[in-house]
């Protein structure tokens, strides 16, 4: 469903993503791991179109989307929950989630001005999907709170609900579990498992290796912008290159 070919992105002298190729099959939950600064988030932003690659191409459902902007890609079904939270201040949690429906709804200014019947029906559908997405991620009770009043971890989950409200075909999750308490993490893991059960294709970045290996069947490991290993979760854990690059650093951090 998603195919990245030789993606490269530089920031000044830093090669954040270096000739990365990646394939995600329909219905798969693929994991991406790697130490800090490995280029994981940059890779996601290349896939969603928030960043343009210096080289390489991106195909989605067989179609070359390299030159499309992020909003066009969202309407094709690519959704993301950012690592750095991007919610809308001054809007309630529910309204934030409703914005996600832009991916499939179509009423414009004119329909809105005159509240035509088709528009009103669409508004009801948007509200309904948004509520369901919020219930699904377990934030139904926070619907009317201002989004910025939630703890940061839960704001990431609001982003997941916003993405789900857009009924995506591919969902990118950039460290969705960070900032969550154990029970919330568990709930998220169950949500991702059930979304996968419904056939949603997902790409998951996570620092918590146990969290990814439990959910993802295949994992890609990045280090310094390059793919250093890829394969089934169980094998990746024992790959010497991965142990050296990623787990080594994690141990360093844990002992620090």
């Amino acid at each position, binding site marked *: 469903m998603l195919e990245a070919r030789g993606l490269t992105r530089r920031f000044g002298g830093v090669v954040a993503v270096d000739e990365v190729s990646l394939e995600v099959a329909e219905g798969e939950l693929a994991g991406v791991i790697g130490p800090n600064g490995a280029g994981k988030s940059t890779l996601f932003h290349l896939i969603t179109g928030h960043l343009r690659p210096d080289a390489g191409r991106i195909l989605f459902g067989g179609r070359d989307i390299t030159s499309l902007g992020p909003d066009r890609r969202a309407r094709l079904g690519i959704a993301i929950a950012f690592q750095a939270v991007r919610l809308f201040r001054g809007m309630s949690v529910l309204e934030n989630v409703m914005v996600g429906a832009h991916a499939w709804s179509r009423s414009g200014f004119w329909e809105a001005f*005159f*509240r035509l019947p088709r528009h009103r029906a669409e508004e009801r559908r948007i509200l309904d999907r948004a509520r369901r997405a919020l219930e699904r991620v377990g934030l139904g009770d926070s619907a009317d709170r201002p989004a910025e009043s939630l703890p940061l971890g839960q704001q990431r989950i609001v982003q997941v609900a916003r993405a789900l409200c857009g009924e995506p075909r591919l969902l990118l999750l950039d460290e969705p579990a960070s900032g969550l308490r154990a029970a919330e993490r568990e709930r998220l893991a169950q949500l991702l498992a059930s979304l996968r059960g419904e056939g949603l294709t997902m790409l998951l970045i996570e620092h918590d290796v146990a969290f990814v290996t439990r959910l993802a069947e295949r994992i890609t490991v990045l280090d310094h912008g390059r793919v250093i290993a890829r394969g089934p979760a169980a094998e990746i854990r024992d790959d010497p290159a991965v142990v050296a690059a990623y787990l080594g650093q994690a141990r360093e951090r844990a002992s620090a």
Partner: protein
Amino acid sequence: MSELPAEPPPLWQRLLSRQALGGWVLAATAVVSLLAPLGLDDAQLTIYVFIGLYTMVVAGLSLLMGFAGQVSLGQAAFFTIGAYTAAILTRDAGMPSLLALAISTTATAGIAALVGLPLLRLRGHYLAFATLAFQLIVLSAISQVPQLTGGDTGLTAIPTLSLGPIALHGQFRTFIFAYVVWVLAAGVLVMNRNLVRSRPGRGLRALATSEVGALAAGVPVTRYKVQVFALSAGYAGLAGGVYAFFVGYIAPETFPVLLSVQFLIMAAVGGLGSVWGSVLGTAGVYLLIQVLDTVGTAPGLPASAPAIFSYAVYGLVLVAIMLYLPQGVLPAIQARLVGRRAVSAVEAERSTRAS
């Protein structure tokens, strides 16, 4: 999910809730604006007409600044374009006034879209400066083509509004204009309200605080910005056209840059993005200006007194609003009454600092 259904809030709270308050303001505005012309003399009616016209401009500006997060320092330019287009189309091309009004409104919106397309891709205050420059360019362009625009002397004897053979003349002219203008203003406000509560309205509010987030959600950010800019210009163009028909005389000096500043202050007083606040902000600031003009022209004061007064007061009003009521006057009153928004604003501040 809690098991118990939530207790409905007490009646008085529901009657003062944000939505209900909007309804009250709407109802009160409707009643007052329907009845007011009956008790006003001609001079007062004229003020009433101007407040209605400026309300349209301010409603658009408030939408642009409050919801799309874009600042226009040259909104009077679109008022000017609307006025000149409507005047020339009726006076020199002999077009019926309603058709001319429709064309001038559309043309103004179209020009804004063309101007906005390159500008709105830029971030920050480019639009503010560019719109200011745009107004200066429009004014000087008008002076450059006197064959068409009358140059610095302006255009006189602009036909009045007419519907078929019936033209607005005579004893009840101002009176009827008052109703026409306020029906249009009400239409503009209702359109705004509907927009704000809908899919594109949510998209606009979203892009004002996070373009990246909005794009990720599928909001066509550039298109929405251009559309809301064109819309605000269309409102201003419509008001400008009616102004030309009402006053019958326009010249470049009718539309100084100060007028743009006035619109900006009216929008800020009413609360950026507050649909009903536009009416209060416009009326409040306009009446204040009238008072100042009266005071400034009192015998014994120098001729420059009115201008000095108004500049000083604009400055003071702006500073006072920024300091004490940054969300505008009407939203602040609502917050006092309902107490909810204030809390969320504080929380918002806290969490933006934390993240």
